[in-house]
């Protein structure tokens, strides 16, 4: 795989593993009574356990600590976004990832959620935030595409831009933000990349964004950002009351 952009001080290119991000932005759908009940919940929970047994990682945290927790965790985004939750798993392969989205949809996910699935291989390794913060109660999903200005820029201009953005990423890390590397989405999405963060607060994400604005990060990209509070996926797939 050729990288869309080169490694930097902050980001090291990941040795190609074949593993694949399965990120999602999902909105709960209003359903008639009994259409999402204990049967769908049981099937979904059984499937989530099966995916884990097949080698999937079930949260952003698990990308940093593969043995951290078997329980799937997502970020609750409904307070600030149209989407109710965003989250990310990691599958053993691109094929497993794509088939997994269909298995999840068929097990009941499609009834509960309207979902944008975002799949792609890891390009850059995880970057641990500075300090000993154990509070990862907030998460952030960034989706972006390189715009026409980036596409028309010279290699030297892009390199200078990457170096400027690296200053902002160093600021993120100094805020204790953990960056789950970077994944490539462009083969199967209008988006080119996904970035996933863990943060201790909404305030630290906001401060980080100010740093990226100061570094003119967004002159070469069109981006969409989601911010949310860490929450078990199970909270979102409880059966509707009869």
């Amino acid at each position: 795989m050729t990288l869309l952009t080169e490694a930097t001080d902050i980001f090291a290119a990941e040795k190609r593993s074949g593993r694949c991000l399965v990120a999602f932005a999902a909105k709960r759908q209003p359903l008639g009574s009994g259409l999402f009940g204990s049967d769908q919940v049981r099937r979904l929970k059984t499937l989530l356990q099966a995916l884990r047994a097949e080698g999937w990682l079930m949260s952003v945290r698990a990308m940093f600590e593969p043995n951290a927790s078997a329980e799937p965790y997502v970020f609750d985004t409904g307070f600030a976004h149209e989407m109710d939750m965003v989250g990310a798993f990691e599958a053993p392969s691109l094929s497993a990832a794509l088939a997994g989205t269909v298995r999840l949809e068929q097990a009941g996910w499609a009834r509960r959620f309207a979902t944008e699935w975002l799949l792609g291989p890891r390009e850059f390794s995880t970057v641990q935030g500075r300090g000993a913060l154990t509070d990862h109660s907030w998460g952030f999903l960034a989706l972006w595409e390189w715009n026409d200005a980036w596409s028309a820029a010279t290699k030297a201009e892009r390199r200078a831009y990457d170096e400027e953005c690296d200053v902002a990423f160093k600021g993120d890390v100094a805020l204790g933000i953990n960056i789950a590397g970077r994944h490539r989405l462009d083969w199967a999405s209008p988006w080119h990349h996904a970035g996933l963060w863990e943060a201790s607060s909404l305030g630290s994400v906001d401060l980080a964004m100010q740093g990226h604005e100061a570094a003119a990060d967004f002159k070469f990209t069109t981006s969409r950002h989601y911010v949310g509070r860490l929450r078990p996926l199970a909270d979102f797939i409880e059966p509707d009351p009869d």
Partner: protein
Amino acid sequence: MSECIWIHYARPRPHWYGLDAATQAAHEKTWAMAAEASLAAGGSRLGRYHIRGQQDFETVEIWRFPSAEAAFEHWSALTAAAYGELNAFANNIGLAIEGSP
């Protein structure tokens, strides 16, 4: 691994129109070679269609690939040859619905 459909929307980026005809032709030849390699590797191209009248993209191209990995390899070869820098795009991939004709 399962067969996939791969749908590719594209339009030239603005600076494409500033390239001279020989440079454009050289790029198109490189991309055609990448497509030939994907065909030799088991992909099949269903066609490339003009959709500018109905869409903000200019063309849609539809492929079948033997696996998601094969679709990725096809796209990776194109982007390595500056395809994405000269074309705006949106891609999608899908598995065949079980039991569909």
